[in-house]
């Protein structure tokens, strides 16, 4: 049944209004979780014994770094679906995630530099963890560039998917880099095998911020993919209609279905604090 539902929503015309209904909820959740995380992280969590108040960078640095890796894995997943089942929407979801992933990779590097300077005395070191994260950032840029360079939509989808699938080997390298190599970067803050090496409030603040970034990423990717659907699918729709003008309109119900969905979703939209009302002009 779940597979039938997924198949149902693989149609861009059906996914477009669904994305509009879901995105505001993820955005609101993201804002609430973010406020709770900021409250705990900045106002409640105690001072770190070694790093003083400077450690509070962790509340944006670790969640941003996690998201940069999670989003790349999600892109590899959707690319595999796109290539394996020929679902165009899966390729567009991959593409809609890429800018957000690149942003989180950049934020990981920026906040890492801002943390490294006071603690290590250097903005940047060619350490295994930092270097593999920089490579991840370039993989995102490469993915975006190769899609932009392909005018043919299907070729753009395929070549992007190849980068996403090949590049995903870098993610475990980033994650385990602090174990495999002797690095300046500190070890994992949270691990499944042992209890966390930090105070409970610190841990909660970090997890809340990570969840907030997660919700933000879903919301923004859903909004972005709506724009892609309009651009890629809408154009084909009008071209199709144009070619039908001279013929009897036997496909009319199919064609108007998409347009009806557009109107419906406009009416169903609610403004959200994080994103505003996207389609309002």
């Amino acid at each position, binding site marked *: 049944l779940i597979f039938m539902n997924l198949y149902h929503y693989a149609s861009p015309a059906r996914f477009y209004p669904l994305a509009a209904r879901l995105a505001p909820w993820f955005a609101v959740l993201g804002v609430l979780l973010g406020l709770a995380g900021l409250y705990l992280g*900045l106002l409640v969590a*105690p001072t770190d014994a070694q790093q003083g108040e400077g450690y*509070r*960078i962790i509340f944006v640095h670790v969640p941003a770094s996690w998201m940069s890796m999670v989003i790349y894995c999600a892109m590899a997943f959707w690319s595999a679906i796109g290539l394996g089942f020929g679902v165009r929407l899966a390729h567009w979801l991959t593409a809609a995630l890429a800018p957000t992933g690149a942003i989180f990779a950049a934020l990981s590097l*920026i906040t890492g530099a801002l943390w490294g300077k006071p603690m290590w005395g250097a903005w940047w070191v060619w350490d295994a963890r930092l270097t593999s994260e920089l490579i991840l950032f370039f993989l995102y840029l490469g993915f975006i560039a190769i899609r932009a360079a392909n005018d043919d939509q299907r070729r753009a989808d395929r070549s992007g998917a190849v980068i996403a699938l090949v590049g995903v080997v870098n993610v475990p390298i980033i994650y385990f880099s602090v174990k495999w190599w002797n690095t300046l970067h500190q070890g994992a803050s949270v691990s499944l095998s042992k209890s966390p090496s930090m105070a409970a409030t610190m841990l909660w603040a970090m997890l809340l911020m990570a969840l907030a970034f997660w919700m933000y990423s879903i919301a923004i990717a859903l909004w972005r993919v709506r*724009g892609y659907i*309009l651009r890629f699918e*809408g154009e084909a729709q009008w071209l199709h209609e144009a070619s039908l003008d001279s013929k009897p309109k036997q496909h009319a119900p199919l064609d108007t279905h998409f347009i009806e969905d557009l109107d419906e979703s406009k009416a169903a939209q609610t403004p959200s604090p994080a994103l505003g009302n*996207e389609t309002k002009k």
Partner: protein
Amino acid sequence: MHWNSLFEFLNMGGYALYVWGSFGATALVLSMECWWVKRANAQAQSELEAAQLSLELQA
């Protein structure tokens, strides 16, 4: 509450530049992304409407 005064909070134990720089950069970049998506979607929408209009004029 961990802090005794607003100054203490803002000063971040001397790490103000690094801590607020990190949180500020994150807030700035994420809100830029929202604005960017909003603009791109509005553009896609208006291009679609323009295409629709030119089709109506042709018909």
